């Protein structure tokens, strides 16, 4: 059973230490880890869900723009990062599992290890409490 690249393993250990929600995906978009604060967004514990494909996690939190138009998974920063191997940032709204609208900002960036290989992506979520 192959282990993940060292930069992915260390990213998980970092995410585990943070209070902000963090997603980590492989290059295909499979959500291979999310930390405890991110469990609130997804409504599932990582231990229960395991690895999730992008088609699944991209729809869970119903993202919309400022005009309440739905955003497709392809418009999400992390998905764009995985497609273009480039960092992205976007502020949008999500509908929480309790039906509340929450404004969030997401910063995503590719994980590129010492050997120069693209091994996955990270997204960090910032809840905007000013709304």
């Amino acid at each position: 059973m192959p282990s993940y690249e060292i930069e992915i393993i260390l990213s998980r250990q970092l995410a585990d230490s943070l209070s902000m929600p963090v997603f980590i995906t492989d290059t295909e978009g499979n959500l291979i880890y999310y930390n405890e604060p991110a469990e609130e967004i997804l409504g599932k514990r990582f231990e229960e869900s395991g690895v999730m494909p992008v088609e699944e996690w991209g729809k869970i939190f119903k993202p919309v723009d400022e005009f309440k138009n739905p955003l497709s998974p392809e418009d999400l920063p992390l998905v764009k990062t995985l497609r273009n191997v480039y960092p992205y940032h976007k502020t949008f709204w999500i509908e929480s599992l309790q039906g509340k609208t929450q404004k969030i900002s997401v910063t995503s960036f590719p994980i590129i290890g010492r050997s120069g290989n693209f091994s996955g992506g990270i997204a960090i979520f910032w809840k905007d409490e000013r709304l």
Partner: protein
Amino acid sequence: MNIKLWGVRGSIPVSDPDTRQYGGHTSCVVVSQDGHFLVLDGGSGMQKLNFGQELTGKRVDILLTHFHLDHLQGLGFFKSLFNPSMEVHIWGPASSTHSLHARLSRYLSPPLFPVLIRDLPCQLHLHEIANSEFEIGPFRIRSRYVIHPGPTVGFRISNGNGAFAYIPDHEPALGLAGILDDPHWISGYDLAAGADLLYHDAQYTDEEYRYKQGWGHSGLSDTMKFATLSGVKKLLLAHHDPGRTDVQIQDLLTELLLTGQYDFPFEMAGEGMEYKIGT
């Protein structure tokens, strides 16, 4: 394949009556078969090596895990480097900023060393490796980056009949959660899984590790857990702390034997120890 330990100490060589049993030289291990020799790391133990008649050809390969001084300080005293008829291949982890040549030159140049790397009389070949697979003589070698400060790899050396995993500097428990039970998330797992012999960092006691997290080394319990999860057949606990006496090393081993239950044999690595794997 034959394995001989020439240096098992961590951090800095020590020379003291209290450290004679396990030895004071820093990391150096030689793997050989059919006249082919691999030298794993160039710690101070490397100074004692002198290949002659036992070599099949005129080639020797040095595999460096990383460039901390305790893994490099013997390199300038390796006799084959000064033999014009010798072909010396040095394999070391790639960095995203400096070439292998540039990083070796930091040590093999004044003021740290009087001889420049370009003035070495041997036929020198440098190879940058990362998460790589390559073959040398009868050996198939896998290198993988592992958790340790700076670009650092571990090695898995197979000869078709057995596998030796060499991870002398490794901190797989780095992070709040320690070593996770899922092999996907264990640094170095690919190298150690099912190995006939694992040579692994065990520099600290568990109490010492509490105060030295992030320094790149393992506490004893983490080493035992890593070996257990990897399903190794035998474990050598190595990279002994320079402040540890023979008696203290023996006491740690005794404590492990008395308090833990493990499915594999283990012992403390000591200078001069020899092992045979496969045929």
